[in-house]
Each structure stands twice: as structure tokens, then as C-alpha cells.
């Protein structure tokens, strides 16, 4: 496994006092969060801790009530999702959101949307430039599918793929956006232990081969401990602990949040 940069040159993403309220409910409470370049950090916490809400603010689906989010030197706090994706944030969804009636390769090609240029007139007239771009995009999409471990499913509809393959396809689609930061929202949810191990190997391989940072959301602590450099624990929208996996495993507040008060003694 490649050792992550020992002294990260800087933070790819900085969330400063980010807050999200839904009516009276404070889903994320003034959270400070950073993601160093080329790192793998995890966000864990019990159900309803605000993990996905935070995720959705990073990707522009939700607008933060207050606070700022800076990605790669750009203020992305109020940017729409597609603009943030274009800057280099790719994501997957907690419950798979592929385009069910599109083939696997089409799903990946949609991910490349922001990186392609073909316009209306060029497409209708079939200009050589546009045709070449489409051809190259297809080659690249096949490579991505292969990389994600999806073989011979290019022309299968996404909804007809096996569950594990759908997860992989979602990652392939996110990689097609050419992200600098990849956000994985509970990628192993619904997987059996064997599939989980395979998937985590895939994530490790991904980091070796691509220059990107990964933010992993999980509520299963075991999954993230092996591969994360830093783990942040959320509970009721607040950061209750942050540190290396080893530190987190022994943190009293974390154990309390996960197992209840009685377990602390």
C-alpha cells in the first residue's frame, strides 16, 4: 500500500463552522472539517448523526445555513451540484442512484458530461471533432468499467446488474467526473462481509493508482478502521472525536455514543 503523503501539502477541502438547520432541528452543528490532499479520511457516527447531511452540503445538494466550504481554493458554499462536480468532487449515494434504464457504459458517459464538449450543432451534423470525442469517451468509459472490476456488462442496463456491481458502477461513474475528491456514502451498506472486503481492497487500489482524496462515510466502525488515516466521529451533528483509528477506538465519548452510557465503565 502506498503511504499517503507524510506531510500533506495542504487541505483540499476546508469546511469552516458549517451548520445546517431543518426547521428547529440542528442536523450539523458548526462543524470544522478538513480533508488533506490525497488522504483517506472517514466520517462515522450513529444513524442520524448528520453524516449524509454534511455530505450533501459538500456536494451542493443542500445549502449550508451558515459557515463556508472551500474546495481547492474555490468557495463552493452556494454553488449548485454540477458546478461543484466540475471543480472536482465526485460522489456516490447511500442508496444507489444509478440511471436504471441506461446501460452501464452510458452511466459512465453521463459522469463524463462536464469533461466533454460536444454541442447541439456538432452532434446533429456529426462533425468529426464530436465523433472523435465520443469514440474516445467510450474507450475511456470501458477502461473505467474494467478498472472498477466490471467486465462484459457495458451494454447491460444498470438496473439489471447485481447489487455489488451496481455499487462498483456508481464508483466508476463518479470517477468519470475526474474528481480530486471522491465522496463515498456508506459504500458497503447492504454488502455481505466478503463483498465488503473486496470493495475495501478496491478502494485501496484506487488510492494507489489515482491522485485523489477520499472521504468515506460509514456507520460500521470496523470497515473504516483498517484503511483510514483519520477518523472523525459525529453525533447529533457535532464532532465528538477526531484522530487516528487507534485513538478513536479507545475514545470514551465514541464508545458512549455507539454503545450507550452503561458501556463506558
Amino acid at each position, binding site marked *: 500500500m502506498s503511504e499517503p503523503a507524510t506531510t500533506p501539502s495542504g487541505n483540499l477541502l476546508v469546511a469552516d463552522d458549517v451548520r445546517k438547520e431543518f426547521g428547529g432541528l440542528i442536523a450539523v452543528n458548526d462543524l470544522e472539517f478538513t480533508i488533506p490532499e490525497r488522504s483517506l479520511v472517514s466520517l462515522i457516527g450513529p*444513524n*442520524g448523526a448528520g*453524516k*449524509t*447531511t454534511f455530505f*450533501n452540503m459538500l*456536494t*451542493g*445538494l*443542500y445549502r449550508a445555513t451558515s459557515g463556508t466550504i472551500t474546495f481547492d481554493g474555490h468557495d463552493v458554499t452556494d454553488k*449548485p*451540484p*454540477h*458546478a461543484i*462536480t*466540475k471543480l472536482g468532487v465526485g*460522489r456516490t*449515494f*447511500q*442508496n*444507489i*442512484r*444509478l*440511471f*436504471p*434504464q*441506461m*446501460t452501464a457504459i*452510458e452511466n459512465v*458517459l*453521463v*459522469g463524463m*458530461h*462536464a*469533461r*466533454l464538449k*460536444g*454541442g*447541439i450543432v456538432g*452532434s*446533429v451534423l*456529426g462533425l468529426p471533432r*464530436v465523433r472523435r470525442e*465520443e469514440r474516445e469517451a467510450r474507450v475511456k468509459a470501458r477502461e473505467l468499467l474494467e478498472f472498477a472490476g466490471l467486465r462484459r456488462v457495458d451494454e*447491460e*442496463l444498470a*438496473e*439489471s*446488474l*447485481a*447489487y455489488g456491481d451496481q455499487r462498483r458502477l456508481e464508483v466508476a*461513474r*463518479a470517477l*468519470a*467526473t475526474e474528481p480530486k475528491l471522491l465522496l463515498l*456514502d*456508506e459504500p458497503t*451498506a*447492504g454488502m455481505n462481509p466478503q463483498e465488503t472486503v473486496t470493495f475495501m481492497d478496491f478502494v485501496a487500489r484506487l488510492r494507489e493508482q489515482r491522485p485523489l482524496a477520499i472521504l468515506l462515510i460509514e456507520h460500521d466502525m470496523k470497515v473504516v478502521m483498517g484503511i483510514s488515516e483519520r477518523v472523525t466521529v459525529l453525533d447529533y451533528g457535532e464532532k465528538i472525536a477526531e484522530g487516528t483509528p487507534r485513538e478513536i477506538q479507545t475514545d470514551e465519548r465514541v464508545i458512549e455514543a455507539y454503545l450507550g452510557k452503561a458501556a463506558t465503565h
Partner: protein
Amino acid sequence: MRGYRDQAVRHSRLDAGVGQWRRLPRPVRTFTPVVVLLAIAATYPFYLASLPSGNVPLIYSFPSVRSAVTILVFTTMAVGLNVVVGYCGLLDLGYVAFYAIGAYTGGWLASGQFQQVKFHFGSVGITHDARGIHISIWLVLILAASLTALGGILIGLPTLRLRGDYLAIVTLGFGEIIPQFVRNADSLHGFDLTHGTFGISPIDSPGFGNSLHNSLGLPASYQQSFNADRLFFWTALVILLVTIFCCIRLRDSRLGRAWIAIREDETAAGAMGIPLMRTKTWAYAIGAFFGGAAGAYIASFNAGAFPSQFNFNISVFLLCMVILGGMGSIWGVVVAGVILSWLNVEGLANIGTWLNDNVFPSNHNIEVAKYQFGIYGVVIVLMMMFRPQGLIPERRRKRELEEGGHGPLDDSLYEMRGADEPGAGERGSPGGHIPRG
């Protein structure tokens, strides 16, 4: 089990023919039916006369060339609407607005409506001192289409932020506003824009002018030609083919993928870098473009644009063509468009005549055409019950049905997702619900 046996029987019967067909190269298989159908369509005016006419079983008679023009133009509009509804999944109940904008733009640019000015540009079949704006219809078609596309963008910008039902309601409103506007815009501070309920008439006819007529033998002016209907028919066929061609090219392009992605899951599409507003507005503009071209053409064909042409029924009617044909399926929409507009133009009346002559007793004649909306309603209900994917389903939907829903391992794997997991089964729901967890 039964399904498999049926399939086996069918296969053994068809094997001989199908096998040979399958061995042909793919381009041949794709284009042969298209070329054959096109040849049949293009030569229709020639053999129409030799077809039996009067008392043909059920349909009574084949559509006249004049009716065929209207059929083709309505089919063109249905193909345009298919971009909005079928590809992008935006329910548009006001497509008639684009038809009206196209027809009136055609009227403004090729008639004597504006007596205050005199502007001629490539126009045919009018006297040199005729007042008003007279531009060549070929140019007018493009101008009207572009202007309608612009109208589509203007209507789209405020409305496309809405989703689902709300969008449908607002488009319904625009479909009512535009015809009302043209009906009443005969005195805008004294300026007669649309000539009110009288409409704009006469509108110039297409043609190639005298110089092209003399050098290449092209018709100088359709209206003054001895076979005007045939010329209009072939031109309408070309317009339909161009529309189909553009829509196929767009469907397979980057933009088409983005439309379908939005239809499938708007939230995910946004997260994959597709600018939602811009992409949806383009769908609207493209749909409007073809609606506008069709409107301008039929205005020239009818030599007039009248407010009574543009009512809500047309929007619904076009939507029926898209739904019956199979949303997103171009060939399905073409087939349904031809059938439905034929029924509307003369089919139902003809069927009624035949039934009255041959089936019903002479003292109990029934005017079938009066029941048209009841009949359409029943057809739609039956379609939704027995063939919801449409006559010729879109390629992807068809494959889904052939494969029986999901893949071979479907059930056990789909159960894994769990019915009680938040968001199970909500994937792709049009509400754009964002999962939380």
C-alpha cells in the same frame, strides 16, 4: 414455464425466415425497413389513385394527399414533443403554444399582415407591389423555428425550476395564454398584431421562384402549381425526416444522454455534473424548434393562421401520440402520430361512414366522429392496462421487458436492499428526494 414454451413454439415457426434475416449485416437490417417504408410513403401520391376507394373495409377510403400533409405535420410535432416528454421526462401540457407561435411567426413574416411596411425577400407567387413582409417560406420555416425555440427558452427559464406536476400545470397555463393572446392582440395600443379572431390570411406559399423553375425545373410556387398537394406532401415528408434525423442524432449525443439521465434521476444527474436548468431548457428549446417549424409550415399550407386552430385538445392529442407510441421511442411516436392524426383528420369519420353503410341498420346511423374523445380515452386506458410501454417501446425499455425486469440474479439480490431500508424503491423517483442518513 408457459412463457418459455410459447417462445419455443414461436421460434420454431419463425426460425427459417428469422435466421436468414439475422445473418444479414447490421446496417442492412437497420436500414432496410426504413428505406422500404420511406419508399412507400414517398410514392404514396402516385399509387393513391390506384388504391381502392370508397367502401374499403373499415377505413372506407385511404387518406387524401391533403389529409396526409396534415398527418405528417402533426407527426412532426409529436416527434418534437417527444424530446421534451420522452427524453427529458418533462411533462408539457402546453405544446400547442409552440405550434401557435410558429404559425403566427410564419404569418407575420410571409403575409400582408403588416400593411405599414413593404419588405420582400425571396418570396414567390405575390405581386411586386404587395405590402407587408414577404420572406421566402424556406427562410421563414427556420426563422419561425428559431423564434419559437427562443419562446421555449423564455417560457422555460421561469418554469423549469419546477418539478413534476407543478411544471405540467404551468405549461398548461402557457398553452392557454398564447392562443388567448393571439385571439385578443388585434389592437395593442391600436397596433394590429394578430388580426384577432379573423387570423392572418392569406399566408404565402412555398416555392423556388421563377429563376430556379426555369433552370432546374423546380416548382416556382406550390400554390400555383398543378400538383400543389403533392408538393406540400413531399415537403412535409422531408421536414418530418429532418426532424427524425436531428432527434436521433441528439438522442445519441452528450446532450441526449444528459436528458435521459435527468429523466431517470434528476438529483443524481446534477451530482454527475449536468447543469439541470440549462439542459432542461435545451430540451424545451429543441422541442419548441420543431413545433415552430411545423406550425409555420402548416400555416403556409393552409394559407392562414387562425386562433381557433390552437386549443388545449391539440396539446393533449400530441401527448397521446407520444404516450401511445412509447415515450422516448422515435419510431413508436411516428407510428402513433400517423395513426392518431389520421383518425383525427378523417379516419374516425370514414370508419363511421363504413360502419353505417355496412354494419349498423340504416335507421340507426351513428356518427362515430362525435365520440372521438371517448374513443381516444378508451384507447389510452386500454394501452395503459395492456401495453404501458407504448406501441414500439424505446430500445432500453424493451430490453428491460424482454429480460423480465432485472437480471438473472435479480430477486435475491434485490431483496438485499431491503424493503425497510430508507430509500428502498425510491430510486429514480421524480420527486428528487434527497436521501438522508
